[in-house]
Each structure stands twice: as C-alpha cells, then as structure tokens.
C-alpha cells in the first residue's frame, strides 16, 4: 500500500478516508486534524495557556505533543488515582514526558481529596469504579484549573470515546447527557473552566499510531478496573460496525454533532450554584464530589 501524498510505503491505512499515509505524512495529517478541531470550535486562543489532562496513555500524551508542536503554552495535570502499579507506571510516563520537554506537570492525589484511593472508594460506594473515578476526575480537573489560573482544560477524548459515549446515551435516551456531549463545553459559570477535546476528529487507532510514530513512551497496559466496563462493550459494537462499514463511527458522531445536537440543546439547563461545602459549582446544595468524600471519610472513621 502506498502513501496518498508521496507514494512511499504506507504505515497506516485509513479506510474511512479511503487513504493511506507514510509515517511523515500521517503525522502531518494528524496534526492538521487537531488544528481543524481547534479552529472549528474555537477551542483555544493562540496565546491562551492550556491545562492538559494527562493519564500517561496514548491519547493525552499525543494531544500534549501536538499542542507543544503548535506552540501552545501548556502545563500538564496528572491525577494520581492510587490504582496500584498502574498508577505508579502511568505517573512515571507523564513525568518523563514533561521532563524531556521542559514542561510543568501538576500532580493531584485523589487520596488527598476524597479520603481514599479509587479502589477503596469503589468498595464504599458499591457503584461501578469508573463512575466514582469519572466524577473525581471532572471535579479535580476543574478545581485545579481554577487554582492554577487556567481558563481551559484539554482532554484526550478521541472519536471512539465520543462515539461510545454517544452510543451509551442514545441506548438509554439520556436527555440530560445528550446536550452536554460536545467537543467543546463552554464555561457557563465563573468557577467552571472551559473543556475542550481537540482529538475528537481522530480515532483511537490513529492516536495510538501517532504516539508510536512520534516515539512517545506511553502506558500500553489498561486500567485494571476497565475490564468489563460498559464503554468497552459499546466500543466493541462500534468497531464491528466500522469493520463492516468504514466511516460508521465518524458518521454516527459527526451526524449527531451537526444535525441532532442542536435539537437536544433546547432542553432547559439546570440552574448552577456554589456547593455549600467546597464552593465549587453544582446543581444542588452540596456537590456530588463532597457527598462522595463525606461517604468515604465517614466509613473510614
């Protein structure tokens, strides 16, 4: 198979684009897609400092790499979830990436904020691990952005992540989740950072290929709690569809963003207020994170 641009041996075939690229031209294609995402949604101003949420995995480190290549002023933030050897290794990958590029890396420990590491939090809540983990991540990323003076947080969510989330929301017709699904969530309160997903145009395989070809050392092992996660079941269904019909994931997500999402946006937004305990933004009197933290600390007491 030959590169569409130069005719050299291709490194990657992109069936949904009916194209193949050699390594240098794939890297060029990838970076162009990120630029197009940022431009289309006006995610970032050229001189705006960006807080990049990094996990040590391929997506977030690939994102950080592209933003640095394009000259953005960035800092990374790593949330130490306390998930055994997985957290130790993923943190080391982020530290090495940041050190090699002379970038600042902020590290926040979930244990300090919630009162216990994620494996213990799961035992207390008895809900799926990803649920408490996702809640903690959203809360801590926003809090860190405010504390360190960043108006925007960039995450490594890719096309597959977004398509799988959309699939899950549609399966259950989650009318509150659908209008919130977007590559960019604008700040709707002075204490809410803008959240952007500059990789939403790129598949998971493409971000892995980019990380590999750029020589980024990322953690290949999966979080031990992701085994059996619903998001993986949804991704499996979508990848089987993609195999039979290249472009299916892209069409599903982009069709929603361009045609359907505006209709869901018309549903009324809940009023926001500040949490009576921590002062972060919430829809109730006490935010979900403070409730979780209280539950964990009470059980441990």
């Amino acid at each position, binding site marked *: 198979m030959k590169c569409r641009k130069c005719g050299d041996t291709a490194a990657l075939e992109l069936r949904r684009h009916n194209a193949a690229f050699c390594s240098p031209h794939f890297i060029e294609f990838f970076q162009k897609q990120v630029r197009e995402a940022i431009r289309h949604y006006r995610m970032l101003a050229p001189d705006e400092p960006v807080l990049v949420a990094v996990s040590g*995995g391929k997506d977030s480190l690939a994102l950080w790499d592209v933003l640095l290549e394009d000259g953005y002023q960035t800092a990374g933030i790593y949330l130490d979830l306390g998930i055994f050897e997985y957290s130790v290794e993923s943190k080391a990958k982020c530290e090495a990436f940041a050190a090699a590029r002379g970038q600042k890396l902020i590290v926040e420990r979930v244990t300090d904020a919630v009162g216990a590491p994620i494996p213990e939090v799961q035992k207390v809540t008895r809900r799926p*691990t990803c649920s408490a983990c996702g809640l903690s991540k959203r809360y801590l990323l926003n809090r860190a952005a405010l504390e360190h003076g960043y108006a925007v947080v960039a995450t490594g969510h890719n096309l597959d992540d977004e398509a799988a989330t959309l699939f899950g929301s549609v399966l259950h017709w989650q009318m509150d989740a659908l209008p919130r699904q977007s590559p960019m969530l604008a700040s709707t309160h002075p204490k809410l950072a803008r959240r952007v997903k500059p990789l939403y145009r790129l598949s998971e395989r493409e971000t*892995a290929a980019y990380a590999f070809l750029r020589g980024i050392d990322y953690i290949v092992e999966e979080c031990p709690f992701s085994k059996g996660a619903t998001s993986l079941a949804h991704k499996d269904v979508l990848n089987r569809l993609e195999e039979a019909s290249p472009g299916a994931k892209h069409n599903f997500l982009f069709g929603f963003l361009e045609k359907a999402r505006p209709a869901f946006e018309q549903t009324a937004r809940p009023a926001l207020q500040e949490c009576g305990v921590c002062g972060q933004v919430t829809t109730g009197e006490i935010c979900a994170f403070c409730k979780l933290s209280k539950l964990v600390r009470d059980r441990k007491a």
Partner: protein
Amino acid sequence: MKVTLRYPKRQVEITGKRRVKELLRELDVIPETVLVIRGSELLTGDTVVGEDDEIELRPVISGGGAG
C-alpha cells in the same frame, strides 16, 4: 513467525507467509482495534509477513475515561 498479543500478554508461533489482514483474521482480531508493529515500523493489511518476522499486535482500545 512470532506474534505477541496482549490482555493477557502472550506469544503465538505461526508458520508460513501471509498478509497482515489474513493473520488478523486467523487470530480473530478486528483490524480497527490494533496497531501491527514490526520493529520500529507499522504495517498495513496488505503487507506480507514471513517466518523470520516478530510481530506485535498492540491494542489501541482504552476503557473508562480518556487515556
């Protein structure tokens, strides 16, 4: 050829030449879910791999939050 797979990490020995896409089909791996790596290069589905090759099928699918 030696083929390394993950989750769980294991190695299988395959005899004879074949195209990468045929190898993936035999191992029941959906092409969209892996990178096919030989040394420092990525291989496309039409590449022929043979006896002396060492191939890694590296999963690209992350669960839970964004990687």
